[in-house]
């Protein structure tokens, strides 16, 4: 077996993930390389979820009985875990949502309904990038259409990085918000935060960072980022689906208006008007995803115990190996940075003229799960003149042997359609 410096003890880790033992299609061992879409869930998280439902299930913040208090403590305890995980100055800056898409939509809608100085209107501008996931494009398009604000974006270089050469023309005095992805889900590019944040601060614009592909894979420190909002999702970091996070700076969460109204987010309600609970509850209308938040807390315990810096090193070693091995495959073109430098463990590629759907199907037949399509980032495909890509993405349990299996599988694909 290939040994690379910096790898985790995957043999031990994989024992925590029962699903990785699955055998598909008459004896093919599952090779799960679709971690950028969703990660698998370790037994430790499954146990916590199970225990929550078997022992503590109740609605939060509204009962005086034992179960309600336990459920509330577990839910709020998960908030503490998230706050510590991202080094948030205060636990009240952590808003639970259902996913990163909702987190980003929440920011767009806070600004959409805000008064000065946050107000987005026809005289202001919104800045995104061409490598965003649709969830960080469409909410801003909607906001721009509704307010008359102008939507601008950074383009991409041929090697899959942000083109910041015209940063002073893109981010201007009119810019109200700059929202961009920390690590691209399709290109794997790890973007330079400092340059963008510095320029945004110069002109007084807010900064929102989509950390969906970063939070699971590397240490994330919202204070070091110097952003105003950071969004990510639980199911890509060993947690369950249905739970996302929006971190926002305290004074912004205090100043900005709520978006969804309902139970839980209020202080008092009369038939004429209402006053709102302080953040984060102001942004959590209705019964929240309780067990999902608790599950996310358990996932954070799990990956933190392994160590985010170690997970990052593991994935860097895998990425370096994968980039090298994939380039040995004839007709394979990596879409995104062609080296492991400033890139994460999601690697998109095309294979000659073979459509990614066909690539994915033939790989699946060998037990290899990859993602094919435009990865909810169609503008990237348009930019590089391709209909779609095949993407392999790794996580803490991925091994060099799985990369070898992928490379062999691609050879089989070439023969099949050759």
């Amino acid at each position: 077996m290939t040994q690379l410096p910096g790898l985790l003890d995957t043999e031990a880790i994989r024992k925590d993930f029962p699903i990785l033992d699955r055998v598909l299609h008459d004896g093919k061992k599952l090779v799960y390389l679709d971690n950028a879409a969703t990660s698998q869930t370790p037994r430790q998280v499954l146990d916590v979820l199970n225990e929550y439902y078997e022992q503590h299930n109740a609605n939060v913040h509204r009962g005086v009985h034992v179960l309600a208090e336990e459920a509330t403590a577990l839910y709020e305890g998960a908030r503490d875990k998230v706050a510590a995980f991202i080094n948030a100055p205060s636990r009240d800056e952590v808003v639970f949502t259902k996913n990163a898409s909702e987190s980003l939509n929440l920011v767009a809608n806070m600004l959409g309904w805000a008064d000065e100085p946050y107000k987005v209107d026809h005289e202001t501008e919104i800045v995104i990038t061409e490598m965003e996931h649709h969830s960080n494009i469409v909410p801003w398009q909607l906001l721009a259409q509704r307010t008359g604000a102008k939507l601008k974006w950074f383009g991409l270089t041929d090697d899959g990085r942000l083109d910041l050469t015209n940063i002073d023309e893109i981010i201007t005095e009119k810019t109200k918000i700059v929202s961009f992805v920390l690590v691209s889900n399709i290109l794997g590019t790890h973007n330079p935060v400092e340059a963008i944040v510095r320029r945004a601060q110069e002109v007084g614009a807010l900064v929102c960072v989509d950390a969906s592909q970063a939070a699971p894979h590397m240490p994330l420190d919202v204070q070091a980022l110097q952003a105003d909002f950071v969004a990510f999702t639980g199911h890509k970091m060993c947690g369950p689906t249905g739970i996302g996070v929006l971190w926002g700076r305290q004074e912004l969460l205090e100043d900005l208006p709520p978006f969804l109204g309902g139970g839980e987010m209020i202080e008092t309600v009369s038939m004429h008007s209402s006053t709102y609970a302080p953040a984060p509850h102001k942004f959590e209308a209705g019964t929240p995803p309780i067990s999902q938040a608790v599950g996310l807390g358990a996932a954070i315990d799990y990956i933190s115990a392994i160590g985010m810096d170690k997970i990052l090193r593991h994935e860097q070693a895998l990425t370096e190996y994968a980039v090298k091995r994939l380039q040995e495959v004839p007709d394979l073109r990596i879409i995104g940075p062609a080296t492991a430098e400033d890139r994460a463990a999601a690697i998109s590629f095309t294979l000659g003229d073979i459509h990614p759907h066909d690539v994915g199907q033939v790989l699946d037949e060998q037990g290899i799960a990859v993602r094919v399509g435009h990865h909810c980032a169609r503008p990237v495909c348009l930019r590089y003149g391709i209909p779609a890509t095949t993407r392999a993405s790794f996580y803490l349990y991925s091994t060099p042997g799985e990369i070898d299996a992928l490379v062999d599988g691609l050879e089989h694909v070439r023969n099949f359609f050759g």
Partner: protein
Amino acid sequence: MKLDSMYQDVILDHYKHPHGRGLREGDAEVHHVNPTCGDEITLRVKYDGTTIEDVSYEGQGCSISQASASVLNELLVGKDLSDATKVQETFLELMQSKGQIEPDDAMEELLEDAVAFAGVSKYPARVKCALLSWMAWKDATAKALAEEAKTA
């Protein structure tokens, strides 16, 4: 290997050597996409009365979607609209069968090469690929008929 039931030689042949590809003059044009995977097709129909004179198309997509368009062209051009509709409906039924329909002789005679797609119906993610051009043809035909009704 199970895959062979999806990627029949007939399908791979049509994929590698498509029939009637390219856009030619037509009475109506439609553009259909499969948003989950980015398959696209632009398709034109040309009618001579109720006879299909031509179905021309241009697109990009996987082998299944491209081969399906080629089969459609081969099967439908020259047919009367009512016969073509029967073929389209039968193909739709086969593709929506989740692998439950074993084509009989009558179906094989009607669908010819299109019967090779029976295996695709077992793969829910790929059924849309196979149906893309057929839905586009149906749509283009409706458009052409509506145009004709307007001018008549």
